[in-house]
């Protein structure tokens, strides 16, 4: 992890002038972004599946303190080194716990990572009917960064509801980069290409993009309204690729190529590191990280107590109450079995909290012109369900870190059954928007958040 990178958007984007006239809407966005360019804001989301045990997770409303941390959150007071993850001091003051959000207002199915950033009802399709939070924010905060947004997804699952958690709009799943080596190639490989070669490549690719634009415009004359919007998406991608091609990043030196690994945790740590580096180089301001699909997470390589290593996170989350559970407790007296099952969920939840801690610490250790990366950001921890055992989605394990827009951390806000739209509305408004309400069903911001 590189630290201490001094950022200047202008140096990062030197030579990034877009030569070709942009369509009207994009031109408007450019202008708005330019106005906000002096105070870049960033949004990061971390998805880890299978929720938690809300009873062992939710603190009472009010300030967080080391003494008041519930069992699942106790590592917020600091934790030791753990294989590839470094030790960390107390970080509860960097986090605000947001409890009792009712996600059943929008998500009808028991395991829909696709809805974990959504506030627009899935209509029974398991997919959001509007843009996910990261995409909504990207429209407003991406500015002229080369990557309007990035999604890193540590699963090869291609089911629309499992392997895709970001949607530009209804029916528009956003592609994810699923391999650290590919992320590296995409974002940083060009940094090692000699400048003259790179300039030639830029000019050449720009000419190809110009041809695509010409073809799209000719084609659109022949198409109906719905088909046109699909070609518009293609054109939008041309504009985005243009920024990526033209961007130069003198503020960044290429990181080492991530070592190939089949270990999901190693890979995910590489994804976090590459993502934070992309933020620190201002390659993007919107980053989504998916640890796994609902079924793929396990803790085999870690020395966690109570037999956690033998079962998947999904099985452990079901305690004793479902068929897809850890069956080694079946022979025990039920009270003993339940005690162990509860402990296991606390252990896995603590692991999840520690990974959130790693992410926010990585961001905090990058200094910027105005402080550190976390100061300019909001970082959301999300899951597809609240109570892993019952699949309940009325008590989501949401956490927020960062101080974008003056957001205050180190506390717990009980939203008292607020719909997800209300929660997202509050987040959006910290990015300088003044929405009266957001989502479907729409709801206004949460008082006190």
């Amino acid at each position, binding site marked *: 992890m590189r630290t201490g990178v001094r950022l200047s958007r202008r140096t990062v984007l030197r030579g990034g002038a877009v030569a070709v006239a942009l369509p009207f809407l994009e031109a408007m966005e450019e202008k708005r972004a330019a106005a906000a360019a002096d105070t870049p804001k960033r949004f990061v989301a971390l998805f880890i599946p299978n929720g938690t045990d809300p009873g062992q997770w939710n603190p009472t409303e009010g300030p967080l303190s080391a003494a008041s941390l519930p069992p699942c959150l106790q590592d917020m007071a600091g934790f030791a080194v753990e294989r590839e993850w470094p030790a960390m001091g107390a970080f509860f003051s960097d986090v605000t716990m947001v409890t009792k959000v009712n996600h059943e207002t929008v998500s009808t199915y028991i395991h829909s990572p696709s809805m974990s950033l959504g506030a627009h009802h899935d209509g029974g399709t398991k997919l959001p009917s509007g843009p996910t939070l990261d995409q909504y924010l990207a429209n407003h905060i991406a500015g002229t960064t080369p990557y309007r947004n990035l999604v890193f997804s540590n699963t090869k699952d291609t089911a629309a509801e499992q392997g895709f958690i970001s949607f530009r709009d209804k029916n528009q799943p956003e592609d994810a980069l699923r391999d650290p080596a590919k992320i590296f190639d995409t974002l940083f490989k060009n940094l090692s290409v000699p400048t003259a070669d790179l300039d030639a490549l830029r000019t050449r690719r720009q000419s190809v993009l110009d041809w695509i634009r010409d073809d799209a415009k000719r084609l659109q004359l022949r198409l109906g309204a719905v088909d046109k919007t699909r070609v518009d998406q293609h054109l939008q991608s041309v504009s985005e690729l243009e920024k990526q091609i033209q961007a130069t990043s003198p503020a960044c030196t290429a990181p080492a190529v991530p070592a190939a690994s089949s270990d999901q945790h190693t890979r995910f740590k590489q994804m976090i590191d590459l993502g934070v580096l992309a933020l620190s180089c201002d390659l993007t301001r919107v980053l989504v990280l998916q640890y796994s699909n609902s079924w793929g997470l396990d803790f085999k390589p870690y020395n966690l107590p109570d037999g956690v290593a033998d079962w998947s996170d999904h099985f452990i989350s079901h305690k004793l109450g479902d068929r897809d559970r850890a069956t080694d407790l079946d022979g025990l007296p039920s009270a003993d079995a339940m005690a162990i099952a509860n402990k296991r969920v606390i252990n896995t939840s603590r692991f999840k909290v520690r990974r959130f801690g790693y992410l926010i610490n990585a961001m905090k250790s990058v200094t910027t012109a105005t402080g550190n990366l976390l100061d300019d950001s909001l970082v959301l921890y999300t899951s597809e369900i609240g109570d892993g055992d*019952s699949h309940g989605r009325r008590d989501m394990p949401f956490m927020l870190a960062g101080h974008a827009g003056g957001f205050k951390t180190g506390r717990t806000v009980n939203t008292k059954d607020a719909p997800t739209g209300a929660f997202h509305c509050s987040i959006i408004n910290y990015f300088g928007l003044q929405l009266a309400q957001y989502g479907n069903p729409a709801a206004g911001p949460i008082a006190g958040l």
Partner: protein
Amino acid sequence: VHRSGTASRRTLKALVVRPALLLPVLLLLGSCQGSIGNSLEEDSDIATPGGGPGPGGDPSQPADCTKTDTGPSVLRRLSKLEYRLTLQDLFHLPAPPEAAQVPEDGQQDGFHTIAALQNVSDGHLRAYLEVAETLGKELMADAPRRQAVLGCDAAQAACLKTFITTFGKLAYRRSLDDQEASALANKAVMVGRSNDDRFQFVVESLLTSPSFLFRVEIGDNAEVATLQPTELASRLSFTLWGRSPSADLIARAERGELDSAEGLGAAARQMVSDPKTQEFFQAFFKQWLNFAELRTPKKAPPRWSEALLPEMIHETELVLNEFAWTPGVPFTGALTTNHTYVTPALGAFYGMNVAGTGSVRTEFAAGHARQNTGLLTHASLISAKSDSDLIASRGKWIRSAFLCEKLDPPPGVLATIQADLAGLSYPEVIQKRNTQSPCAGCHARLDPIGVGFAQFDEAGYFDASVKISDYGLTPRFEGAADPELSSLADLAGKLSQAPELAECMAQKVFVYTQGRFPEGNDVCSVSAAGQRLVTDNYQFGSIVASLIESPAFRLRRVPQ
């Protein structure tokens, strides 16, 4: 809105033409209360599996199959597979290029071809550009192939324009107009850093533009448009071969040979018998029956190893290919056959001694657990694909894959019944969910099928020490004329004769080839293809042949 079997809903709409099925339809509708429903469904225009009739017709009215009509279809991007197969042809390559940079297509209901979900993101465009750069460069460095693809000597001044005209026509699936071709040639001359590079620039420009990446269908510009001849050639080629039409097929279309039903039918028959159809339908089978990727079991059974996984997949491919494409052999035989193709190691896993190398055709001995069960006991198909309860998920697989029933838990049901199930033994849970509303509506259709598979574990290993009777549920195939089941072979036999099977298979082929779930009058083409399959003694190729021969195949309804 309650949904039960999609096929049966379709059947209900098409009752005019299929009165014989009235009785089973009503039984189905009544039996799975609360299968799925949500109050906001009408708010959704994602055509979900078994989605409503849509703009093609009034939801409350059965489709009028005397009218030629079709459901709306959005502009389709080439799927990753179609893209790769098309590039193989364009560049005369021995195999489709990997194109590993191109993101995998998302899937719904197992199918990776759903057009509504396909876009051209910046990640796609980046990948398409890289692939085109590589393929163009390799082409120009390979003299014999370059000559064949260019059709002229690159050193000749006129060759660039010739290449743009011929290659461009294949890439865009239409002729480029003069202005377009000249503009591209001029640009290539301006941008190219060498003569070869001009050709590479043309390749890069064509293969990243929407006219190549989208399957443009404009037809006669009507709301329900009749496709132009070359558009029809394109649809035909993608439907059967999953790739752009060949120069020959485009030429035939331009000569008007596809204008008549006979002409189109003749072209289709010729293409169905080509190995390219089998190649494209390999992917269909994997998506339909869900065996493209197998999981490592949580607990490995005896004689299991990771190396068996590809052999299991291959077993299923071989059986499907045999029963799908051998003339005169009905596809239903794949469900009941007593032979399979296993390696010695996979044979051992199945409890058999198999000699030889590679996958060997092997008969199951009398009394073997897999006797006369065809596909239904392939390890690739019955091994666990998710963490779900095996008894329910196997029942669901049979009903959704072969009978097109859609059975999802009603929203919120699990949270509400959780307390009722806590502390119960597994047989007690099964008992409860098979008798108590709202679970029983679906589980009583699923579990009695699934319990018949109970002796096969998550890896598909047969464990004789498991007793089916321990589950407190008698194997049963609800809906069949004689629902009692004596064995899995009995289930296989009854499934192969289920009246819903043919239309369901037709529906799956429709989704795979047309990139959308049937809506409105699509039910007529699907229903006809199902009937044709039965009439043709379950010759698998009849399904797609029937879909192509349907008058609706020439139409495109512009989405609104």
